[in-house]
């Protein structure tokens, strides 16, 4: 009977312990509630964006002259894909002018996301022929700053404010001819490695038909594939954890010359 007061305090402390566990559980549950749905909504949006962007690229009209825009009254307008097909049919190469026209259109269509996402658009011929027809790579031009954390190596990567983006035509030999055969295989392996290491990607793919002109001026059509891959902008060179760069062969900016892995066969281009 004398210990009645102590027993009720012990009971209350047990009650407090149980309530604490319950509160921690509720708090944790409230914090994580909806994160899966949010992720699914973002995935749905990113996939829809990539699919719409690819359709827009393939359906759009474009001026034949890269110095004009589709909104100029005196511009000679053609379907973008028809222009590429026509150019490819005679010498089985896309020429520099048509590459620029296509690149400018892709860059304009993806302009709303260019500050946050990097992307590549490519047309290739899979199967026996194995050839890159067109490859545009858009990446963020990162600069690296030391975060000044004492006794720690900690860097902040941010886009160069004077020139935030870099564009490259890739899959090209020195004489501007498209990669095929072993070069194509090496490039595709590099692309697979890049996709596996850059985190979540949004991808869209579509079969298209290209034509090649025969000697008797008739045309043979064959299947090709257009692909668009978007990913969150990340540094694609070497890091302390990654000894081999995904796109660049350098550890970190700043550098005098950007050393792109030669297996990509890239040449820089500007659409401004």
């Amino acid at each position, binding site marked *: 009977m*004398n210990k*009645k*007061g102590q027993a*009720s*305090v012990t*009971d*209350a*402390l047990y*009650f*407090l312990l149980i*309530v*604490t566990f*319950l*509160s921690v559980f*509720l*708090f944790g*549950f*409230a*914090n994580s*509630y*909806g994160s899966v*749905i*949010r992720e699914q*909504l973002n995935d*749905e*949006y990113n996939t*829809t*964006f990539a*699919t*719409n*962007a690819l*359709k*827009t*690229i393939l*359906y*759009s*009209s474009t001026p034949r002259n890269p110095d004009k*825009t*589709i*909104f100029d009254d005196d511009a000679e*307008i053609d*379907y973008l894909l028809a222009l590429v097909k026509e150019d490819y049919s005679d010498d089985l190469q896309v020429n520099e002018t048509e590459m620029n026209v296509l690149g400018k*259109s892709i860059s*304009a*269509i*993806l*302009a*709303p*996301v260019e500050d946050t996402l990097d992307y590549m658009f490519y047309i290739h011929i899979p199967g026996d022929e194995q050839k890159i027809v067109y490859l545009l790579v858009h990446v963020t031009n990162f600069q690296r700053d030391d975060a000044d954390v004492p006794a720690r190596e900690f860097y902040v990567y941010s886009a160069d404010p004077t020139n935030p983006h870099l564009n490259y035509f890739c899959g090209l030999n020195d004489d501007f001819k498209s990669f095929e055969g072993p070069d194509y295989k090496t490039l595709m392996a590099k692309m697979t490695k890049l996709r596996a290491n850059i985190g979540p990607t949004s991808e869209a793919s579509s079969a298209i038909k290209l034509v090649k002109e025969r000697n008797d001026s008739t045309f043979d059509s064959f299947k090709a594939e257009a692909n668009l891959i978007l990913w969150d902008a990340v540094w694609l060179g070497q890091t302390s954890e990654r000894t081999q760069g995904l796109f660049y062969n350098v550890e970190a900016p700043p550098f005098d010359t950007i050393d792109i892995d030669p297996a990509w066969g890239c040449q820089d281009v500007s659409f401004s």
Partner: protein
Amino acid sequence: MLNKGFIGPIGDDLPSLIPLLFGLVMFFSTFTLTFNAFDQRNVEFDNDIAVMRVSRILQSNSYLYSYDNFQELCDNIGVVNIKYIAFLSTDAVRRSDRDTLFEIEVFASEEDDDLMFFCTNLKEYENDDPMTLSSFITLENAQDERLVSRIFPIVVEDNKKVKPMHLFVVAWR
């Protein structure tokens, strides 16, 4: 002697009431916080889903072949439980310099300036020239709301050209 310090059956249990009350306050505070978090996130998801629904109908197959086609799709949206404005714009394709989303211009047909490509369930808006998002909701008003916006590339056939542009969908409660 045995009753020394005894202040009654309730008085003896007074010290145990402190952790009890503390526990109850903690539990109900967490419960209220959790309930509010659920409620807020459900509202956000409802808005997101409504925006996706509106944009899915308007995108159709990413190809709008006329102004009438756009209006037909707009009529198919039906009732949604949020305020929305969906419009087409060429600003991003033209790389027009805009400081905020509210300055983005609504696309008007090249064939007829009066044919403005927008779709909304708002009963009142300004008929500015040119029309921008701020004709429907101003930056000041938007600060009191939680706006959800999405952008999708789309092609529109206008004046015998298939033009790339962007569909903007902006929604709020």
